Each structure stands twice: as C-alpha cells, then as structure tokens.
C-alpha cells in the first residue's frame, strides 16, 4: 500500500460557515496504481488533491489521517509537510501553464528549486535532460523563459520538474482539461509512461473527464458532494458500476458512434446539494431514482467485491 487515507475531512472557511468540501474520505492506493479521481465540479475532488499536498489559506483540516509509505503525513502542518513535498509526494497543478516564475530561465529556476531543497543540481541535471528528451522537448528549453514556450510545452516542462525527485505519489490536478484532444492524449500517455519508467510509484489523476480515465487509469474513484461514492477498477466502473450516480454519469457520456437519432442519452436531473449544510443520509438521495427509506441513513463506503468499494444501500443490500 502506497497511500492510505482514513476519514479525511477538510472544510473551506467561508463567511457563511464551513463548506464541507471533503467530508470523510477513506481509501488506499497500491504501488504502481494510477487512480483516477472523478466527479462534478464542487464534489471535493480538488480539495482532496490539494489537501494531500498543501492546504491553502482558506482550507481547514478537521479530521483524519494520511499515511504514505508507512509515514504519517502531518497535512495540517505546512512546514512539517515540506520534507515530504517533492521527494515523497508531488503535484502537477491545475495552473501548470503559469506555475513557472515568468522572470527566470526555466533551467535556472529548476536549479534554484532543487538546491533550496538540498539537492545537488549538477548531479541531477543529466537525468533532467534525459526526461526533457523523453517528453519530447528540446534540451534548449532550460535556457528559455516560460513565455517562450507554448501552453503544451509549459505543461510538459512542469510535469518533468514535478517528478524529478521520483516521488512516491504524484497528484495530477485537471491537467488535461484545458488542452486540445491531440495534446490531451500526449499528456495522458506521458503520465502513464512516468509510472512505467518508475519516476513515480503511484498517481492520483483528478479530472472531470471519465473517458480520459478509462484510457489511462487502473482504478477510478468517483466522488459526489464531498463524499466517496464508488471506487473500483476502471473496467468495473465503466462496465459494471454499482452506485446509481456512477451508472447515470457513465451512461450520460456521448461517445463517437453514439448518435442522438439512434440512441438518446439522458443526464441526471437535479443538482448537487449545498455543502454548507449538506443533507443527512445519502447525499445523492434527492436525485436518485432508486432512493428508498434506508437512504435517510448515511450509507458506509464498503468493499462489496474484491477491490470494489461503494457507498450505497442498494448495492450493499438492505439487509447487510
């Protein structure tokens, strides 16, 4: 087990009160696993990703524990986390296009960052150059300023920098959403190759696009309204989903080949609840066609089949 998260709760402080953006997450990621994390906007997927690497000013750690390779991560302690960042867990942020200091040459910035972490840049540089080759950039990029690179090039450069110290866990946050389909595929395949080359041991790929996850992820974790809904192998999530939300989500996605004239797809009626005062019981209840009395109680996130976790009374059986 590479990563173990247990009952993690992280809220957002707002003037109206705490937004319970991540309200109890328990899951684990195996070595070599690429876990896709999907859900609608506001479901807490980015909160989960951010809270593992760095809580920003408005995020509040409430409860739970995170263990990476046997070490408990002090995620509530910004300075205490520093020794784990970059070396043990790293991130390719959503804002990768603007993540590099605009007034520093990329090579210089990378060097200063590494040296500041006590690494020897000269010793790492050959590996850096190899990886630049690997992602299809010119070695010359190190002598350029970020603004001289296209968006896709910047993204690939950030991917290289973030994984330079071979972290155990990499969090990739919505890194394909702003890209064209052709670049999207290249970036997604690069992520897989990073894992295959052993640059990172395991990975969380956060996205709203389930079809990208089908292409690259080993497992998929579906979130809904701050809670975990379902986690299983990719093929199980796509072909044999158990949670009604997953089922409706997957069946609402048009694919090449599906045509309105032949097969009219439908979405999920209603909208997610406010996380300021979330409803009790199953949070999907109001939109769920299968909802029944039992759903007034909160369904536990349990393993119903080998490596197939779900939080739904219908899936676990009412008598369970």
């Amino acid at each position, binding site marked *: 087990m590479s990563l173990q998260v247990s009952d993690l709760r992280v809220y*957002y402080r707002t003037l*109206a009160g705490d*937004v319970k*953006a991540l309200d109890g997450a328990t899951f684990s990621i195996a070595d070599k696993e690429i876990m896709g994390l999907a859900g609608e*906007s*506001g479901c807490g997927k980015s909160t989960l990703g951010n809270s593992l690497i760095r809580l920003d000013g*408005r995020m509040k750690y409430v409860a739970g524990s995170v263990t990476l390779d046997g070490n408990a991560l002090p995620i509530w302690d910004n300075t205490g986390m520093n020794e784990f960042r970059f070396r043990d867990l790293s991130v390719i942020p959503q804002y990768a296009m603007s993540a590099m200091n605009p007034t520093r040459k990329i090579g210089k910035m990378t060097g200063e960052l590494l040296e500041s972490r006590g690494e020897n840049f000269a010793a790492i540089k050959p590996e850096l150059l190899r990886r630049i080759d690997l992602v299809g950039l010119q070695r010359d990029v190190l002598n350029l300023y970020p603004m001289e690179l296209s968006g896709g090039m910047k993204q690939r450069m950030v991917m290289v920098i973030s994984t330079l110290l071979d972290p155990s866990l990499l969090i990739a946050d919505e890194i394909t959403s702003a890209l064209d389909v052709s670049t999207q595929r290249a970036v997604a395949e690069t992520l897989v190759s990073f894992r295959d080359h052993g640059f990172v041991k395991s990975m969380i790929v956060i996205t709203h696009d389930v079809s990208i996850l089908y292409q690259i992820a080993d497992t998929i974790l579906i979130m809904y309204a701050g809670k975990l809904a379902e986690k299983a192998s990719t093929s199980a999530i796509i072909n044999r989903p158990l949670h009604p939300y997953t089922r409706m989500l997957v069946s609402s996605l048009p694919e090449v080949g599906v045509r309105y004239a032949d097969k009219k797809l439908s979405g999920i009626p209603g909208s997610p609840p406010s996380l*300021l005062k979330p409803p009790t019981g199953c949070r999907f209840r109001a939109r769920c066609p299968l909802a029944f009395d039992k759903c007034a109680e909160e369904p536990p996130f349990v393993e119903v089949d080998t490596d197939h976790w779900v939080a739904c009374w219908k899936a676990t059986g009412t008598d369970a």
Partner: protein
Amino acid sequence: MSGPASTDPRMESVSGSVDIDKEATAVPAKKAGGEFLYFALRSRKFLFATAILLVLVGFAIFGPMIDTTDPMDTNGVQMSSPTMDAGNWFGTTILGEDVFAQFVNGLRATFFVGLLAGALAAFIGMAIGFTAGYKGGWVDEVLNMITNVVLVLPTLAVLIVISSYLKARGVLFEAVFVGLFSWPWVARAIRAQTFTLRSRDFIDLAKLSGRGTWKIIIQEIAPNMSSYLFMVFILLFGGAILFAASLDFIGLGPTGGMSLGLMMFNSVTYGAALTLGLWWWFIPPGLGIMAIVGALYVMNVGLDEIFNPKLRDI
C-alpha cells in the same frame, strides 16, 4: 497624479467582479449593497478613514458658520499664539488674521478643489479609457498616444506656466486645470479593464440584443467597474488636493480666496513664520491636508478589502 496606488498594479488589475473558488461557491447570495455594508461596517480602515473625513468635512461646513471672522481681516492681535479666551483658537498671523478662520475656510476650498478636480479627471479618464478599450484599433492607438503624452508631461510645470500668465485665478479655475492634467493613469487603467470586460460574452450578447455602443459601455461595462471607479475617484480626490496645494505654495493659487496651500505659502514666504517661530500658522494647514489625503488613501485600501474578497482575511 495619484499617491501610492498608481504604482500598485492591482489598481490596474482588480476587477469589480467577485471570483470565488469553484469548490466554495456555496456561499449564500446576498444583495450587492447589503454585502458592501456588511463588510464596510467590519473594516476598521474604512470606518477610521470615514470618521476622520467626516470630522474634517464638518469643520469645512460648519466652521465658517461658527467662527464668522473674515479670514482676511487684519484687525486682530498680531502674532497671537493660540488662546481660548480671545477667540483665536488657532492663534493669529503676522497681520493679525485669525488662523482658525483661515483654516476652516481653507478646508472648504481644499475639499472643493479636490472634489471638482477629482470628478473632472475621473470623467475624462473614463471617457478616454472606455472609448479606447472598447473601440480598440486606431481609435485606441490615437487615444493611447494622447494619454502617454499627458502622462509624461510634468503636470505641475505645465500648470505653473499656464497659471503664471493668468492674473486672476479662482478656485474653480484651479480645480479645472488640476483635473485636466490628472487623468492619464485613470484612462490607462480603465482602458485595460474595459479591454478584459469587452471580451466577456455578455457584451457580445448585448450586441446580439441590438444594443448600441454607448448603452453597452454605460449599462454593461461601467456598472461592473463601479467599485473600481469609486476607488479611482478617491485616489484622484487625494492627488488633486496635494497637487493644488503645491500650486498654491508656489504662489499660483486662487487669488482673493483662502486655501490650505495658500496658508502655507503666506506663512513661509510673506509671514516669515519660520524665522519668527509662528508654528500655529503653518502646522494646521499641512496637518489638515495630510489628514484628508491620508484618510482618503486609507479609505481606498479599506474599500479594496471590502470589494475584493481575496484580500479580506489578510
């Protein structure tokens, strides 16, 4: 010309709209005005600055009513230091004029110049900024060039040359001229903001609804920048006061009137207040200007925190 904030690029980049993290959009909606009041009443900076300004405005409005002494009346005791009993609360000048009467009358002129010049500069800056930003193309090129030229001109020097040829100058004249030369940074900043707003889809939709250019600028773009425009006006207000004071101090202030700058000019150049130690003559006008301008700047910061949710908890 503004004080500190014109070097602050946030003045050029802060947009009036509120952007909240997608993850936390669940904040209950309040009406814009109610939200403003909610934060305004909790902003110490804003309340502090407002209090100071209100006191000074009170002096400017009611001072001349309470103390009806003619500020230019030279029949008083000469060079009296501040006394409570003789009615010379702030003392008298070398000619026996009442400093308190001069101060409250000078405050009036100072507020008047600041308001009028600030409003004029804001108006010109908006007109040019909106037009350049919305129209783009060669209109933008030309207006931009004009803006840059006025921006580079050392304004005080220009005003000195113009004023020195005029024999009779009123407060109104001074305000107009200060206003006419203070707008360039405003035009620049508004142009940049208009530029970003122009590319928003609601502008295109307004066009698709058959709206005309000016209706779009006034009804769609300007309301989105209203908080920003208000802040710009406040900075212009403060800048104009400092500016007019400098002009007064060179001896090119309003003829036949009283202003805080003129008090300083008189005290130093004619009154030999420095060599005679008449500190009560030059301390009040400078302190008054400093209080007004300082309060305006602090109010600007307070407003920024009120309008911009990102800054609220810093």
